[in-house]
C-alpha cells in the first residue's frame, strides 16, 4: 500500500505532564495527514459540501506504540482503503523521523450523508469520479521484475 506523507513538529500544548504527547492529539494529527492527501484531489470537507455531501466519522481506531515528545519531527502517512461499500476508511501512521520508529497507527471510517441527512448506501458517481485519481495515486507501482 502506498501512503501520502506530510510532517509536523510536536508542540508544547500537545505534551502531557508525563512529557509525552497526549493520546487524544493523534486524532488531530491524523486529520492533518488526511487533509494533506485530500487537498491534492479537491476532496476537502468544503469540496464535499459543495458537491452536496457530508462525511461524518463513524469509527476510529488507534494503537499507540511509542511516545512522541516535545519538538520531535513527526512523519504522518495517510492512505485509504479502496471501498467495497459506501464508506471511506483512511489508514494512518505516525513515525518519529529521528529514529524511524512507528509511534501510532490507526484508521478512521467515514460514511456519506446527503444534505438532507439521508445516509447514502452507494458512492455517488460524481464522488467516485473525484476519488478515482486519488486511488490511482495511492496504488503501488507495478514491479519492474
Amino acid at each position, binding site marked *: 500500500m502506498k501512503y501520502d506523507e506530510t510532517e509536523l513538529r510536536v508542540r508544547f500544548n500537545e505534551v502531557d505532564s508525563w512529557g509525552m504527547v497526549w493520546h487524544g492529539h493523534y486524532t488531530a494529527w491524523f486529520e492533518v495527514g488526511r487533509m494533506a492527501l485530500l487537498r491534492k484531489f479537491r476532496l476537502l470537507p468544503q469540496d464535499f459540501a459543495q458537491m452536496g455531501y457530508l462525511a461524518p466519522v*463513524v*469509527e476510529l481506531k488507534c494503537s499507540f506504540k511509542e511516545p512522541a515528545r516535545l519538538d520531535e519531527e513527526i512523519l504522518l502517512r495517510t492512505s485509504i482503503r479502496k471501498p*467495497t*461499500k*459506501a*464508506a471511506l476508511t483512511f489508514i494512518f501512521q505516525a513515525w518519529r523521523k529521528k529514529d524511524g520508529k512507528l509511534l501510532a497507527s490507526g484508521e478512521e*471510517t467515514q*460514511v456519506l450523508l*446527503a444534505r438532507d441527512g*439521508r*445516509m*447514502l*448506501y*452507494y458512492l455517488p458517481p460524481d464522488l467516485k469520479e473525484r476519488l478515482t485519481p486519488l486511488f490511482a495515486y495511492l496504488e503501488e507501482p507495478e514491479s519492474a521484475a
Partner: protein
Amino acid sequence: MAEDLVLELKRLIIDTLKLEDITPEDIEDEGPLFGGGLGLDSIDALELVVALEKKYKVFIPDSEVGKKVFRSVKALAEFVKAQRA
C-alpha cells in the same frame, strides 16, 4: 416460502456481519434490526446493502428506504419478495 426467506435473511445477516454468538432463533421476525434488538449500526447497514444486492439483486439506495426495509427481518423479506416479483 416466506418463512424460508425470513430464515435465509437471518442467516445472511449473521454471516455478513459475523455475529458469532447469534443464531437465527435469536433474531425476532418482527424485532428491530437497528437501534435496539441486534444493535446494528450504520456500517452494518452498508455491509448488508452490499450482501443483499449480491444475493437478491435488490437495490436499497439510502437510509430513507433503509428505515422501512430494515425495520425488521419480516419487513426486509417483504421488500426482497416485492423486488423479485
